[in-house]
């Protein structure tokens, strides 16, 4: 390793230890500690740097209209309702009157297939996502993701209403809770 050379003394041994200046005075300094420090700092900053930028899913929701008259009218035959239930349950049905509720799940064979089929059948499809209070954020993101995968741009997040509750309760059957009008 590099060091300051102090071995000049030996040359002028008989002259009472007086150092004769050599022609070349080596100017090497031991740089090892400096390198150590630099490497340490380098490692620290590399590790501290946030390498991984978070991924985001962009979500655009329809504007909240203050007046009901501004709401676009949609034929109920074009409306696909997706209800996110508790315990990762998922229901879907078309329209509101005489709606045929079907249960499905978040897998590729479930929701994605439903969306694929329905968007192929009907190119005016509007999807209403209705999360129940018991559903989780993951359910919501999964659903929105499936909508993006199937490139369905017309969707909205809608409140889970009493009418929907009636439909789901009628489907699951087990719920004795009376459905208030």
């Amino acid at each position, binding site marked *: 390793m590099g060091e300051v050379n102090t071995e000049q003394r030996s040359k002028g041994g008989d002259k009472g230890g007086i150092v004769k200046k050599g022609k070349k005075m080596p100017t090497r300094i031991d740089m090892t500690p400096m390198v150590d420090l630099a490497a340490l700092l380098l490692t620290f900053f590399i590790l501290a740097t946030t390498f991984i930028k978070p991924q985001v*899913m962009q979500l655009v929701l329809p504007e909240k209209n203050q007046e009901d008259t501004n709401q676009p009218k949609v034929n109920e035959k074009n409306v696909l309702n997706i209800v996110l239930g508790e315990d990762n349950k998922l229901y879907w049905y078309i329209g509101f009157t005489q709606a045929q509720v079907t249960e499905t799940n978040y897998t590729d064979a479930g929701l994605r297939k439903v969306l694929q089929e329905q968007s192929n059948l009907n190119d005016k499809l509007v999807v209403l996502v209705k999360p129940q209070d018991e559903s989780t954020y993951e359910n919501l993101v999964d659903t929105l993701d499936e909508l993006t995968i199937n490139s369905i741009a017309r969707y909205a997040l809608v409140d889970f209403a009493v009418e929907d509750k009636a439909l789901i309760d009628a489907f699951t059957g087990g719920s004795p809770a009376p459905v208030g009008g």
Partner: protein
Amino acid sequence: MAKVKMQRHSPVLDMTPMVDLFFLLVTFFMMTTTFAPSDFVTITTPHATSEVKLPETNNGTIVISADGRVFYRTDGTKNLRKLGERLNEKYSLGLTESELEKFSRQTGYGMPLSGLKQFLNLTDTQQKNTTLPGIPVDKGQNELLDWIVYTRIVNPDVRMVVKGDKTTNYPVIKKVLDSLQDCNVNRFNLITDKETNTLI
């Protein structure tokens, strides 16, 4: 033929270029590093297929923990200071100059504004050990609205980001999304993880 005497090389290595390079890199990393902001709580984000990356600056992030508490953070010390001044004015929090300074150096907020002054006067370790109650988002007392509105006033380029935990129940999410929409923010970003399993 005379034998050529091998020159004895001392094992000295010229480290100067290496040191140069090291310091160049150190400088580079020092300049570019922005420390990852802390979240107060551990958040497991849901998976999605999206591959859009979130830019590092101009984010207003709303963090929603699994138990339904809401936190808020944004970046830019100058903007934060202005944000603090605005909130101070509106809610008459009585923050002093030094408290505003502390406010602008916070990485996030998760308390009702009435508890802000007290929180700012805690030491760093005390702050870490405090369980924050979260920002109120309920109708009637929705302080998140003000955080969003004033952030957008002091920094018009800000984009709203929602970082929710997988298991958060929908009502809180709805309150947050409603608050955003009440401020006319209809375009926002949900932080997700890359889907680990292969698709299709």
